[in-house]
């Protein structure tokens, strides 16, 4: 039915751009920038095209691609798109060009920067679209390489250490996941996610692996994903990595890469190990709450703005996991309220998208502050920025309030749905999570007050306001924040069938 491999095109166009940049050894930096931006925009264009042809009524996978790849390992090159993938591809399409634009003023090695960012983009897209562990893992791991070099080369003073820590933590997790999938393959003879989920639903996986084996495998896969998200207390790599990375890279890391972990939870862990996730859910809820509360708490204690935003990322993603774990916990319970589960799940998906927008915007704003302050980004290094640079203050404020969950902006919808769902499923957890909300409000308002209000600081005087290039990445993000805040259905419509389908299968086999 569809001759054009649209999804492959989505993945490989950025890589093609990277190759092109690699070949243009003597190109002018400006040409490189433009090319990089153009190729990163291809994702947006293609994803809008896909959006137009996407049938939101179906919960199954669309635009499938299937090729035999390694017959000896029963590996197939399999791609597919559903609502979950679609919103993440859309998000990538938005954040990646924004990240390229945010790095427009980069001082050196422009070509290499653009190239690596394009590589990273392609790898992230691959993760969202691949449906067979073999190449999914290729994308998953390969995303680390450009990220490592991006942080290391263009990062701050502690970047080498941060990058090393980031990669070793993540590969450490991945190693366990690799062993886990090795075991799964040994038991089932397939790497296909859907096939594995189907066999898991039939109880075959658990039967083949044995009671302890299946737990060990679950734990391995879980570790791999949890490090990536990150789930508290495996998050310690994140603040230094995000804080040391250059602005554009921080945007991409928080906007897109942090979603890879949550995506993995939804696409892999939950379908393949529903019973184990259910069994582990009480503990996991505690961990997710740890992320929500302590993440926010830690953010409150930061004096470095970038680290503050980084911790807020931990906090926000923990909401997603909290919702998922709550649903898993409630699975099979007699009085399970399906609407609550559906609400929690759609909240999760919306939160993924919304957090991507607002966190990317926030990082960009902090980056702009940093550039103007000559590299300083302490909470107390600023003051009265609003009077000097009102446009910057405005955009930053919108992003901040979106992140805080102010009604009318996009952040509210996701968090509201999550809380509504979790209240229905695990009220105590929701209660504790409120502490996180409170702390978030506190630190974001402190940020707002100290930086933008008050007397104009000595270092702030004489700032330029935003230039056109600096505004450019913020505009689409901000517009979407408002639009989705007012009309969340635009996004929710894409995922509703999927969520309904999920919620409908919540009776344990």
């Amino acid at each position, binding site marked *: 039915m569809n001759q054009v491999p649209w999804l492959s095109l989505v993945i490989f166009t950025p890589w093609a751009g990277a190759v092109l940049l690699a070949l243009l050894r003597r190109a*002018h*930096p*400006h040409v490189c920038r433009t090319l990089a931006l153009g190729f990163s925009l291809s994702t947006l264009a293609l994803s809008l095209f896909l959006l137009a042809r996407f049938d939101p009524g179906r919960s199954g996978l669309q635009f499938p691609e299937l090729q035999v*790849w*390694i*017959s*000896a*390992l029963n590996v197939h090159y399999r791609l597919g798109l559903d609502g979950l993938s679609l919103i993440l591809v859309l998000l990538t399409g938005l954040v990646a060009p924004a990240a390229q634009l945010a790095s427009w*003023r*980069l*001082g*050196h*090695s*422009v*070509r290499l920067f653009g190239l690596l960012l394009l590589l990273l983009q392609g790898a992230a897209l691959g993760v969202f679209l691949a449906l067979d562990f*073999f*190449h999914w*893992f*290729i*994308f*998953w*791991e*390969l995303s680390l*390489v450009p990220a*490592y070099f991006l942080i*290391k*080369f263009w*990062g*701050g*003073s*502690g*970047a*080498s250490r941060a*990058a*090393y820590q980031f*990669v*070793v933590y993540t*590969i*450490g997790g991945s*190693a*366990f996941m*690799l*062993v886990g*999938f*090795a*075991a799964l*393959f*040994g038991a089932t003879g397939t790497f296909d996610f859907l096939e594995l989920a189907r066999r898991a639903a039939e109880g075959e996986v658990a039967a083949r692996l044995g009671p302890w*084996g299946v737990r*060990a495998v679950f734990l*391995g896969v879980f570790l791999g994903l949890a490090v990536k998200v990150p789930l508290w207390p495996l998050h310690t790599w994140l603040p230094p990595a995000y804080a040391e990375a250059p602005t554009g890279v921080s945007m991409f890391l928080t906007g897109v890469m942090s979603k890879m972990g949550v995506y993995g939870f939804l696409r892999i862990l939950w379908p393949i190990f529903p019973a184990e996730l259910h069994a582990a859910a009480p503990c996991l809820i505690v961990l997710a709450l740890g992320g929500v509360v302590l993440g926010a708490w830690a953010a409150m204690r930061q004096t470095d703005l970038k680290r503050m935003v980084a911790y807020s990322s931990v906090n926000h993603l923990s909401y997603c996991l909290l919702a998922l774990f709550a649903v898993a916990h409630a699975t099979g319970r007699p009085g399970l309220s399906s609407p609550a589960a559906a609400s929690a799940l759609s909240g999760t998906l919306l939160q993924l998208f919304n957090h991507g927008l607002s966190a990317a915007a926030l990082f960009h704003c902090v980056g702009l502050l*940093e*550039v103007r302050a*000559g*590299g300083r980004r302490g909470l107390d290094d600023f003051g009265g920025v609003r009077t000097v640079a009102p446009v910057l203050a405005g955009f930053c404020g919108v992003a901040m309030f979106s992140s805080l969950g102010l009604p009318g902006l996009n952040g509210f919808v996701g968090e509201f749905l999550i809380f509504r769902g979790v209240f229905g499923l695990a009220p105590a957890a929701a209660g504790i999570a409120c502490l996180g909300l409170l702390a978030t409000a506190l630190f974001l308002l402190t940020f707002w007050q100290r930086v933008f209000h008050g007397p104009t600081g000595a270092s702030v005087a004489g700032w330029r306001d935003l230039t056109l290039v600096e505004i450019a990445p913020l505009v689409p993000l901000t517009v979407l924040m408002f639009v989705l805040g007012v009309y969340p259905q635009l996004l929710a419509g894409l995922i509703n069938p999927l969520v309904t389908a999920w919620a409908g299968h919540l009776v344990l086999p």
Partner: protein
Amino acid sequence: MNALPWTIYFSFAGALLALVAGTHSAAVARRVALTTALAGLAAAALAAARFVPGPGMQDLQDVAWIPELGIRYHLAADGISLTLVLLTGIAATAGVLFSWNIEERVGEFFALYFALIGGVYGVFLSADAFVLFVFYEIAIVPKYFLIANWGSTNREYGAMKLVLYSFVGSALVLAGLLWAYAAGGGKSFALADLVRTAAGFSRTEQLAMFALVFLGFGILAGLFPFHTWAPTGHVAAPTAASMLLAGVVMKLGAYGCLRVAMPMFPAGLAFWQPAIAWLAIAGILYAGLVALVQEDFKFVIGYSSVSHMGFVLLGLASANPRAVSGAVLQMFSHGVIAGLLFAVVGRMVYERTHTRRLADLQAMPLHRWLPFPALVFVLAGLASMGMPGFSGFPSELTILIGAWKTSPVWALCAGAGVLVAAAFTLRAIQVAFFGRANRHEAPSHRIEAELRTDDNVETTPALATPHHPYAPISWPEKAGALLLIAATVYIGLRPDFLLRWITPALESPMLQAILKGGTP
């Protein structure tokens, strides 16, 4: 298929020719060497193109040699042999390219080099234990002279240690084989016959003979704790020899384990299996951890070889078709990757900087001075870490799958090895090439640079020392690196290319008897 024996003859003939040519002109000797290596590779490729995968060894040559002892000059090949012959061809070609700059006693260098290669080809193609052993020993002595003559740090010690370990290993093999031959009536050295007669031995005999033969081959494969020859030897060796030693010669040991020790003594395998697996795991982890704290760049790579060979041994010890096919794939993969790593460290970097101390390298902005080696090393390092997309990934994955089938605990411990590998490789990449990549680690100011609106400045002047003291990367280096990278990426993306040869080979009666769990 009949092209395969020519790999052996080409190599030995090339050794003689190079020796003669070397007395006249180094340049001619080099050309002879490259031609020889390419001829071997071409023969292997031709055979590969015509190869019809199937169980069992396909006869290549079979003539009576020493009828008094029942020894036949019997060459045969199956998918496993073919894989390793192809690897040898690739590694040999790359090795010649990376030896292009040798100026001293060129003819002798290549003569020894191809004597070694010829022995290696011979081992992979032998179907008679005596022939295999003869080729195996032929491969030992040239190593000593290659290292002692053209090596670097501590070369005479490293060479002697390496050769004595190898020879002790081969002595153990000889003892075990002779014992088995004599106990079986002393009629034939054909592997198939030995397997048949060994089935009648008592359990005690099988256990002892297996221990002798496996340990003997295992020493050469870097079996912990008998691996210590490998790092010192690899470090001392000249680049091409390191590439071959780590890339191919260690595979001889593993190949011997698979082809000789395991099929002959199934009872011994069953008994020693856990011990071997745990030694292999200990090797993976120990060598990886040691690599993590090395101060010498080449030692990092040397230990990494031991760690990776641990995976091969683990795959063999798991004794199921999946794991063994992974082990063979890993042999190929590691052969290519180790070659690449040693090429970067020994040839591209050391011969220019004349230091291998990581602390010294860290002080240089090598990624700017030597961008090509940096790129190659990053790729090789990723491959070595088992990064998906490179050949290390499918092989380690396959080994893990197989190991899990035999014992999940082994797989888990080996999985930790993947992590350690990532850590030490990353450290090496970071320290050696990107020690001063970050501008904050050098005296300059990032923000100022970032605020510059002058688009024409690609690099900050403080760092980009345009005139570094090093010779540019020569064409043989580029060609060799590209050959190896192409091999690892191709196999990374299409492991089927080799697996479709390897998997049927494991269904031969000889191997199927010891590999539990049916066909993969």
